[in-house]
């Protein structure tokens, strides 16, 4: 009883937020979203939520999709898989949404949600990283993702190492799904491209990485990559500085660490750092002919107007995912199979995270051309390596 009251409440809030320019008569499209606004993933979940909300509001202000209003139902998974599973079940069986956008802000959650959507035959656009969310496509016909695959990220890094003549690398990845996937992919890429890799790991709560860094130093690594979204990545920077490792090696963080807050906390320990990133944070430094420059600048402006703060990559991930949902719902309407096919047909769609190309046998839409290396100087990110 109270459950349904809550759902109504949320629907009401969503309806109030989404100014009713749209005629009320048509059955609205219901978009469900599960993200983590509290718990360990909270620091990126809030940005992701605000990005999605901005997109939904914009859609409703501009007359909805195909004359239908969008009703947005949001659940906070609190970084807990069990909650996310319950929330997803509620979206699928009680709220009966047309599409789910956002996979709980954590790869582990998105993987579980992907399996549930597959069974329920409801389209799912994940905003999380792990390749297994959409691969193999035969078992993930209903899941798509708005993020880049880790194997491509590692290929992009290997391209950079080639350019710099770097052969010995070390990886410090956290024990989460994000880190383990990176370890797996970098192992494959390193052996394919003749790099010698020392793979180490740490738990997200670790307060001391000196042992791992010492091992990386002893392995004479020329580049040390840290792969995490947690504050332990700051410990990595600080302790690498204390050990003067930047004199020996290039320090690199993965795209999970591209956040102003982290860079500010790191202080001058971030000076020698390179970060693998999507183009979003350096949108204004991209060449004019770059296909994603315009979408980035547009989102940046809209987000600042709506929330009075600067957006980041995580905002773009959910914002883009809602845009893809919009494109697909406009074509497929209330027919879920048609929506699914419309998602597979997305080609050359220019959004803030990059140019998206889906196909019936590829449900991860970004290529490695959408990745750049950036550095942090004077309170903002700068483009350091462009294709």
């Amino acid at each position, binding site marked *: 009883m*109270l*459950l*349904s009251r*809550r759902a109504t409440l949320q629907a009401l809030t969503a309806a109030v937020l989404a100014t009713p320019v749209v005629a009320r008569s048509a059955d609205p499209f219901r978009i469900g979203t599960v993200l983590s*606004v*509290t718990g360990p993933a909270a620091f990126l979940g809030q940005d992701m939520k605000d990005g999605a909300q901005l997109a939904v509001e914009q859609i409703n202000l501009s007359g909805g999709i195909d004359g239908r209003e969008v009703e947005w139902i949001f*659940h*906070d998974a*609190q970084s*807990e*898989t*069990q*909650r996310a*599973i*319950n929330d997803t*079940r*509620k979206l*699928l*069986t*009680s709220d009966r949404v047309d599409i789910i956008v956002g996979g709980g802000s954590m*790869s*582990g959650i998105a*993987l*579980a949600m992907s*399996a549930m959507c597959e069974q329920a035959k409801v389209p799912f656009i994940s905003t999380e990283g*792990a390749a*297994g969310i959409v691969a193999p496509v035969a*078992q993930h016909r209903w899941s798509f993702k708005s993020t880049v695959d880790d194997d491509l990220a590692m290929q992009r890094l290997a391209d950079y190492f080639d350019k710099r003549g770097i052969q010995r690398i070390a990886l410090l990845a956290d*024990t*989460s*799904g994000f*880190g*383990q*996937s990176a370890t797996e992919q970098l192992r494959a890429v390193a052996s394919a491209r003749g790099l010698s890799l020392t793979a180490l790991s740490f738990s997200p709560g670790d307060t001391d990485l000196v042992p791992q860094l010492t091992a990386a130093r002893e392995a004479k690594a020329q580049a040390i990559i840290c792969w995490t979204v947690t504050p332990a990545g700051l410990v990595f920077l600080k302790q690498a500085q204390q050990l003067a490792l930047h004199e020996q090696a290039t320090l690199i963080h993965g795209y999970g660490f591209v956040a102003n807050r982290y860079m500010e906390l790191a202080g001058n320990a971030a000076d020698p750092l390179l970060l693998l990133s999507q183009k979003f944070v350096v949108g204004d430094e991209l060449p004019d002919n770059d296909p994603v420059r315009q979408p980035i600048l547009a989102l940046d402006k809209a987000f600042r107007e709506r929330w009075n703060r600067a957006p980041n990559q995580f905002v773009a991930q959910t914002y883009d995912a809602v845009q893809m949902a919009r494109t697909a719902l406009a074509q497929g309407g209330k027919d879920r199979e048609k929506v699914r096919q419309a998602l597979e047909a997305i080609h050359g769609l220019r959004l803030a995270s990059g140019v998206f190309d889906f196909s019936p046998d590829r449900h991860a839409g970004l290529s490695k051309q959408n990745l750049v290396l950036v550095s942090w100087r004077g309170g903002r990110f700068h483009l350091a390596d462009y294709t």
Partner: protein
Amino acid sequence: MSSPHSAGRTGLLLAWIALLALPFLAPNEHVLFLGIQFLINLILLASLNTLMGWAGQISLCHAGFFGLGAYASGIASTKAGVSPWLGLALAAMVAGLIAAAVGRPALRLKGHTLAMATLGLNSILSVLFTQLVPLTGGPNGLLGVPPLSLPDDVLTTAWSTFLAAWIATGIVLLALLNLIQSRLGRALGAIAFNETAAAAAGIDASQLKLQVFVLTAGMAGLAGGLYVHANQYVSPETSGTSVSVLLVAMVAIGGWGRYWGAVPAALVMTLSPEFLQEAQDAELLLFGVLMISVLLFFPGGLVAVPGAISRVCARLLPNA
């Protein structure tokens, strides 16, 4: 410690049959799965309550045994094609076996040291669940676990899962009731009260404690088996040390050492996330304060609340 009266068995039977109404009343699958989760929590909490209340042992590894059961059945069914129904038995066995292996040295320890040892065991299990990626799927969890379905789709998966959880709950609750009403149960009570005196009276305390430890761990494993097939998924954080601590707290909130205490405890555990989610960021603070309030004002736990209220009413209305 309240000794369950003779009506206990009839009451249990009636309550158990009444639970069967739930799938008929549930408006959608989400609510039905909440019911399944309630039953799983009930098995977990009732078994831990017996270990704590009657054997006087604090185990901070109950979530670990739950995880062992979940992974045992989950891995057996995904990697070796074992039927999920058989997997349930396997889940209970694996958890019980591990409990038997570590129980002998661990149960020689007392009070805090035992709590620490079980906490350490849970931590080790957590690391194994996270790091043995080829087996467990690592931090991303074990995917593609088959559900508890019946041949030819006689019933929907949700229904058959509910029935499995319902039957398992009945067996566990009856077994626990029999245990605490038996001579063994009274012997356990004596141990919890005063282990030295019990030993003097000829009770082999360590042997008894080990048996209850193994039995309740097996029940936690069974709950894990149900869980993994109900959700078709398990990940390491569901069996972490903080869950073990929370389970102990939940037992106390429900009514430590009271047979029916597990029922309100499981209700709170299942439903509080649903209700407190409204509070958003304040949820954690609210939950902590509520927990302190219950422990302070109802030391007997929530299960003692109706009795306390009726006593107060009787005092206020002496002639009624």
